[in-house]
């Protein structure tokens, strides 16, 4: 009597057995759940904005300085037709539109100093009014200011009341720059140059060079005011981390089957080596892909524009890490040995994801790592919202790496299974 069993039935049976074995591995189930919770938590506590603004305090206010200058210049009989065009409102409007710097006007230098010393907390209400309070004592006032924005002042400029008139007359004046001790050197140097430049311009000294128009000198997409946050940069890293955990789990499953002789037992059944390899490929890829997609959903990586690119990228990533798991698992080491093998193989694969955190071009040796095109695709689709056509070469590069590693994984695992 001949009873034939179809390949799909064999495959289904192996997958069922593997899933059962996987669900019994409490350590990896625990690590996967903890990993997902931990990575999602990390993502949401990572800063989602980039602070690229220098908050500068000045005292006295622009209006006070201009009024004083008008009176003094009239008293001295100095005609400054250009100066008549200056209005505090216009200057304030110009400053408000300046990218990278926010100027806050204080009437009282002492108040500004105390804010910089950290003795007072500074709040800016919606209409731009400044309020500073002692956080230890003014609890009632703090409650009233709950809708106002709290500001960290980096630097303060204390101008003499006659600064504008003296600068126009070409007289040397003294300006005090108050700095928060944490302000870096370059900001201190720049602020000194900034004050001097104001005085130069008021004194009628034109800029010694002609700067090109700002629009003409920006190379690449101008991200001023909409910089890529650390949170956004973390997305590829977290997606790869979850694939990494699945590599550990899959390698452990294969290792234990080799060590415990399950594979040898299976070989006396109608199962062929091809069935075994296919089952491992399907299970490893599906587990990694489902968890990768879950984490990307939880960190809101999917958009209407990128979902298809992300899915294909994660599929490639899952297959890549499953291939690595096959190579590690084929060594058939005990728990500790397999752990060390896994670390040895997977840590280099994480390097491209870390490299994304650092601004600038990734080093050429990093671009040689198999996971690099996957990371590039994740970055492109989640941060830069690129389409298929923009990144077709990365896709090709990723497919080539995945195919190569999968082939290596298959050959190594096949030979191991056949020699058992």
């Amino acid at each position, binding site marked *: 009597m001949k009873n034939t069993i179809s390949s799909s039935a064999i495959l289904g049976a192996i997958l069922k057995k593997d899933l059962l074995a996987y669900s019994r591995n409490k350590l990896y189930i625990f690590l996967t759940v903890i990993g997902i919770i931990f990575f999602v938590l990390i993502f949401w506590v990572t800063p989602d904005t980039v602070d690229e603004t220098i908050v500068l305090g000045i005292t006295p206010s622009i209006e006070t300085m201009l009024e004083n200058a008008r009176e003094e210049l009239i008293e001295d009989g100095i005609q400054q037709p250009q100066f008549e065009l200056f209005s505090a409102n216009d200057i304030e409007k110009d400053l408000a539109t300046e990218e990278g710097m926010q100027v806050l006007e204080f009437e009282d230098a002492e108040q500004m100093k105390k804010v910089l010393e950290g003795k007072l907390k500074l709040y800016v209400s919606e209409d731009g009014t400044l309020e500073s309070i002692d956080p230890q004592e003014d609890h009632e006032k703090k409650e009233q200011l709950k809708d106002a924005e709290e500001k960290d002042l980096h630097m303060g400029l204390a101008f003499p009341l006659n600064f504008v008139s003296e600068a126009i007359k070409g007289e040397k004046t003294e300006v005090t*720059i108050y700095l928060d001790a944490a302000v870096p050197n370059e900001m201190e*140097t720049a602020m000194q140059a900034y004050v001097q430049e104001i005085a130069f311009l008021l004194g009628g000294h034109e800029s010694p060079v002609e700067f090109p128009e700002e629009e003409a000198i920006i190379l690449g997409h101008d991200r001023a005011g909409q910089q890529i946050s650390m949170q956004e940069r973390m997305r590829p890293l977290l997606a790869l981390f979850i694939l990494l955990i699945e590599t550990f789990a899959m390698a452990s499953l294969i290792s234990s089957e080799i060590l415990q002789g399950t594979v040898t037992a299976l070989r006396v059944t109608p199962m062929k080596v091809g069935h075994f390899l296919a089952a491992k490929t399907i299970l490893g890829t599906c587990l990694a892909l489902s968890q990768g997609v879950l984490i990307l959903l939880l960190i809101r990586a999917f958009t209407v524009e990128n979902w298809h690119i992300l899915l294909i990228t994660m599929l490639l990533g899952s297959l890549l890490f499953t291939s690595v798991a096959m190579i590690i698992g084929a060594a058939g080491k005990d728990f500790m040995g397999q752990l060390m093998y896994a670390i040895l193989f997977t840590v280099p694969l994480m390097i491209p994801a870390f490299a994304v955190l650092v601004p600038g*071009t990734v080093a050429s040796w990093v671009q040689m790592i198999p996971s690099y095109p996957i990371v590039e695709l994740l970055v492109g689709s989640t941060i830069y919202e690129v389409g298929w056509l923009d990144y077709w070469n990365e896709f090709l590069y990723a497919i080539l790496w995945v195919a190569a590693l999968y082939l290596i994984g298959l050959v190594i695992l096949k030979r191991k299974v056949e020699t058992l």
Partner: protein
Amino acid sequence: MSLIRVWKLFLKEIAMGPRNPFFLYAVIVPIGLTFLLQMAFGTIFEPVPRLGIVDYGVSEIKESFTQEEGIELHVLNDAEELKKQVENDDLDAGLILQSGLDEKIKTGEKPQLDYFMGGESLASNRIILTVMALDIFREIKGDDSPVALDVVSLGEEGLPVSMRLVPLIVFYALVLAGVFLPGSGIVEEKEKGTLQALLVTPARKEEILLAKGMLGVVLASLTAIITLFLNNVFGPRPWEVVVVVLVAAVLSSILGLLVGIISKNSTALFAVIKGAGLILFAPVVFYIFPDWPQWIARIFPLYWIIEPIWEVSVMGNPLAEVWFELTVALFIVIALIPVIVILSNRMLKA
């Protein structure tokens, strides 16, 4: 208890220890982490403005920029390469100094500048570099400064992120060598049955555990000291640093012995360490985020060894300032010894 036997067992541990994968791991990870975190966080969170210059003459402007503090200056030979680097965010801004630019500035010709900025450069860095450049052009032109500047620094300087990450690296040095190594050593002996074999020799259970603990103490102390040294935070009193590190290594190793005793096999050991990892790791986070309420950190056991290392090694304070923390750490060690004795008796009966 025979000290000679403990010594011989300790020598055996030293000889066999490197065969344990965690031995290698304990040595490599803190050093690797030091390089990785110093390299990464030194630039990620505190990015200095990066300027590229191509000088087609012999400009004083380039020389002036080399003397500016707080900017990263790159001198290139090719304008196209400079533009490419600016566009790729390898540089924040690029400046091409054409031949004869200095002379044109000096004669008041007001030459057009070849200056460009990267789209991904921070707005604050654009202002800093532009204003610095203007200041240098004024200097070249010979304009006298119209203001006298008085710079006053207020408040206390905060610690850089790379410094605040030192407890994290030291934590790994202590946990990997102090907790993992003795723990995995005991588990391995249990799994391979060599623990039973050892116990039929004159060696006693306490002597075996002490030898394994000693290996943890020695390796944890060494890796922690090397880590502090590599991070350039050895403090002004090196011997006092050694004392706090030793106390930390002893407490870590005691925890390692405890973990090894309660874990039936490697998988259980890994699960225990992963499960307890968050509790052990928690105090380290408070050094990275100093604005968080610091009293919470005191709830966790490793706070009492990380805090003395932080104060004596990183902050440079004398040992006398951390006597309370050290006393608590030693108290935890003393309190855990009877627990280890009871649990190890149960382990042997099982």
